[in-house]
């Protein structure tokens, strides 16, 4: 099994040199900590910054510098600042190479649900619908099953949809999978100590298993 940090570490391996990346709130934010230092990447914050740096020290804290999760941040050398319209212009225009976000459910067609649970307080979609509608490459960080054991990798999403046919890759506590439209969830790797059988049981949508499935090694 992978814990949250394990999921973040595994997703960090998908990062390539020269990428502009948008990280969602939660596990996706942790990914930044595990991107190899030799890679030059730029992190986008949809409230108007390219070049998110580390969290500030106490005396660097600046209320005019926050990320999309409203956390205080710093800027890397070479950063740029812009309005929300410009920010979503670069997202909608397909200029951001990689989007990493969390999900409550993903379907075997790559539909994602991550903004609303019926019967619970609706907080809003924020920038999630804009991001998933336009991103070139979307990786989802999520738990494979809910707390009561129900699969979150489904044939079709049961929760209100955030976007259709957009998720390309999923990293869960159990596995790494590609979403192949018209085919299903293609199993790529197993989390340490997890069997293919475990993953089959935890996946409601169609699971494709071809050949030997390697275990993730760190």
């Amino acid at each position, binding site marked *: 099994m992978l814990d949250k940090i394990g999921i973040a570490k595994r997703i960090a391996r998908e990062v390539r040199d020269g990428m502009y990346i948008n990280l969602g709130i939660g596990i996706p934010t942790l990914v930044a900590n595990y991107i190899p230092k030799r890679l030059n990447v730029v992190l986008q914050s949809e409230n108007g910054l390219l070049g998110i740096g580390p969290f500030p020290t106490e005396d660097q804290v600046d209320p005019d510098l926050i990320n999309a999760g409203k956390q205080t941040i710093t800027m890397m050398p070479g950063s740029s600042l812009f309005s929300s319209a410009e920010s979503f212009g670069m997202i909608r225009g397909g200029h951001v190479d990689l989007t990493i976000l969390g999900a409550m459910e993903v379907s075997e067609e790559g539909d994602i649900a991550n903004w609303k649970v019926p019967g619970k307080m609706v907080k809003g979609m924020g920038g999630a619908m804009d991001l998933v*509608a336009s991103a070139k490459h979307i990786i989802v960080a999520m738990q494979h099953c809910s707390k009561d054991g129900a699969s979150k990798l489904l044939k079709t999403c049961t929760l209100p949809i*955030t976007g259709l046919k957009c998720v390309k890759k999923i990293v869960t506590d159990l596995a790494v999978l590609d979403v192949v439209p018209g085919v299903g969830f293609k199993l790529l790797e197993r989390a340490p100590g997890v069997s293919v059988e475990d993953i089959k049981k935890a996946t409601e949508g169609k699971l494709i298993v071809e050949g030997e499935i390697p275990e993730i090694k760190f």
Partner: protein
Amino acid sequence: MINKVVANADDAVRDIPDNAILMLGGFGLSGIPENCISALLKKGIKGLTCISNNAGVDDFGIGLLLKSRQVKKMISSYVGENAEFERQLLSGELEVELIPQGTLAERCRAGGAGIPAFFTPAGYGTEVAEGKEVREFDGKKYLMERWLKADFSFVKAWKGDTSGNLIYRGTARNFNPMMAAAGNITIAEVEELVPLGELDPNHIHTPGIYVQRIFQGKNYEKRIEQKTITI
């Protein structure tokens, strides 16, 4: 140059009537028009429609106007940080329209730029698409979204001059530039009001043409929602 300086926040909001449609800049509590929110609270006008990315927190920002029951409707992308908001929403006192953040930003931009509608892929196939025209362009589906305009826009800038030219600081810029342009009357409050000629024209973010009133703000709290530190 035209002098747009008013004495203070109370003077700036003097003629805002009940049931006005307002835009308020800011993302979370960053870049919000703190002084104008206090003045609206004091003025006590009711039935307001507030277009703002967020709804503040219980005791700061737009949260203050919610608590005093001055807001009839919120148009936002994310409203999760406010318990009073939740209570009013569930009891039916408050109307809420949730809009994808990029769509909200672009609808404001369109309002200021004279573009009545545009097409965006955000929200296609979701409940946001209900009742909206869908068009296909080059094989992809898009929703038609309409412009947004306001009777009054409230923006907060770092520096401004007496003719309303504005410079923002850091990520406190966010929705402020588009909302400045989309307001029939735009009120700018600034941390530092400077004489004409002091701001480098190369560095202006919001040209003064969009601003009708400007004043030197005071007592900025600039509250931080999630203080996060490297140890």
